């Protein structure tokens, strides 16, 4: 039997409530300085107090993260398709795509500001750099694992490269592409916030300003919003993955 959505959601909700209550009690009982660690109730208050301000910051961060993520999807998938076209292309260029994975984005963020200017462009660039590699790597591994018998079948019927890519290799790689998107969706938010630390705007700026003013309650509120944004993006990818794969791929069937 399939557990109902409510019953599935219940355990994490209970854990959340218990953890929040426990934290509240501990912070109060131990008389922790609010500037060091605010009780959850203070964080909740800052949501109310600075709601409008936080909402604007959230929408800015969302814009940067989503645009960066969309760019990653497009560029990542296209690059993977190009890399998979010939083994020499892959040998020559793949090592350089790993650059995106290894570059410390916080260290090059000042450079991004010089190249892209303050504000949104830097944020988008930062989100893109952080989130593109998992899409390239996963898509590529999916494209390279096409069933050889099916490739033979397509050859037998004289299918060209383009129709083999569209009708066989890309759909075959779809489960891998979805894995890449799932990883990148969360990373894009992290990249966006890092970009905002240096480039300015959004939740990143809220956190750094609040930190300087020892407003830990506001900083916590902003951090919570950023991670919820990441969760929401991952949830959308999961939904997309379910819609496209449910009828054929084992990863999306009910595990009862």
């Amino acid at each position, binding site marked *: 039997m399939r557990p109902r959505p409510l019953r599935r959601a219940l355990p994490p909700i209970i854990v959340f409530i218990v953890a929040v209550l426990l934290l509240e009690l501990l912070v109060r009982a131990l008389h922790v300085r609010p500037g060091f660690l605010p009780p959850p109730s203070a964080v909740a208050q800052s949501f109310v107090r600075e709601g409008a301000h936080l909402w604007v910051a959230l929408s800015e961060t969302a814009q940067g993260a989503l645009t960066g993520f969309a760019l990653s999807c497009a560029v990542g998938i296209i690059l993977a398709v190009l890399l998979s076209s010939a083994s020499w292309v892959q040998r020559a260029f793949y090592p350089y795509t790993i650059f995106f994975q290894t570059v410390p984005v916080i260290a090059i963020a000042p450079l991004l500001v010089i190249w892209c200017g303050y504000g949104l462009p830097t944020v988008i660039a930062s989100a893109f750099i952080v989130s593109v590699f998992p899409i390239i790597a996963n898509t590529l591994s999916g494209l390279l694992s096409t069933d050889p018998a099916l490739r*033979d079948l397509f*050859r*037998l019927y004289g299918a060209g490269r383009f129709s083999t890519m569209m009708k066989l290799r890309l759909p075959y790689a779809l489960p891998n592409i979805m894995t890449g998107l799932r990883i990148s969706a969360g990373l894009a938010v992290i990249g966006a916030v890092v970009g905002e630390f240096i480039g300015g705007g959004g939740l990143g700026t809220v956190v750094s300003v609040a930190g300087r003013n020892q407003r830990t309650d506001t900083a916590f509120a902003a951090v919570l919003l950023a991670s919820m944004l990441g969760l929401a993006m991952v949830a959308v990818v999961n939904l997309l993955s379910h819609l496209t794969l449910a009828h*054929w791929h084992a990863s999306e069937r009910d595990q009862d």
Partner: protein
Amino acid sequence: MQTADPTGALLTPKRAGTRVELTGVRRAFEPDVVAIERVDLVAEPGEFLAVLGPSGSGKSTLLRLIAGLDRPTLGTIQVSDPQRAARDEARRAEIAFVFQDAHLLPWRNVVRNVSLPLELTGWSRGETQAMAREAIARVGLSDAQRRYPNQLSGGMRMRVSLARALVTRPRLLLLDEPFAALDEITRQRLEEQLRELWDSLGMTVIFVTHSISEAAFLAERVLVLSRRPAQIVADRKIDLPRQRSAELRTTPTFAQQTRALFEVMRQQEEA
């Protein structure tokens, strides 16, 4: 003879099979790994030929060579049409291949899997639908047209694979141990079905297998391959009636045929 289908022109039951001729074919993967050594082989138009050999002999390589998916190191392969296809038939793929497993596209339902070869060879959507349905009906899966491969049993998947091969009405059908992974009952049923399909469609069939009884039941003629490097060590005509039913399997004549093949394989093992 025409079927009742309104698109009857597409469904003319018989098409002449092609003749296949291999002369001195050798296929070596590296200088010292020889899969096939000097194979001469002729399949007459419309013949059902079984190639019987131990696992790991070059059976699959042989089929891939005939299909044009691989090139021989030496020798020539000719797949020729006795009656050159009429102009409107030129679009039809002449060769079809059935693999060891069904190898369907899991994201396509049965109809869309079966119509794939037509799509790839440039048929319009309206035509592919009717032809796919007809091929699906031939393998008895009309009730499962909208299902996805993961909703089908192993035997049904293989029948979809057969329908996909037949949908272009090929003149040459190549099968690479297609029923090896199926249970005995399913396998026998599919063998009978394949035999009927061959009988009504008239294409040339080359069927590779390691099962003696399968080769004897299906084929008009059986070629026995040696271990790697594969050479043809026997060429035996199967002396059984053209109409072959399930009951044939338990008759003394059938036992005689399999026994003779068994002896050849045995001698080969001991040699």
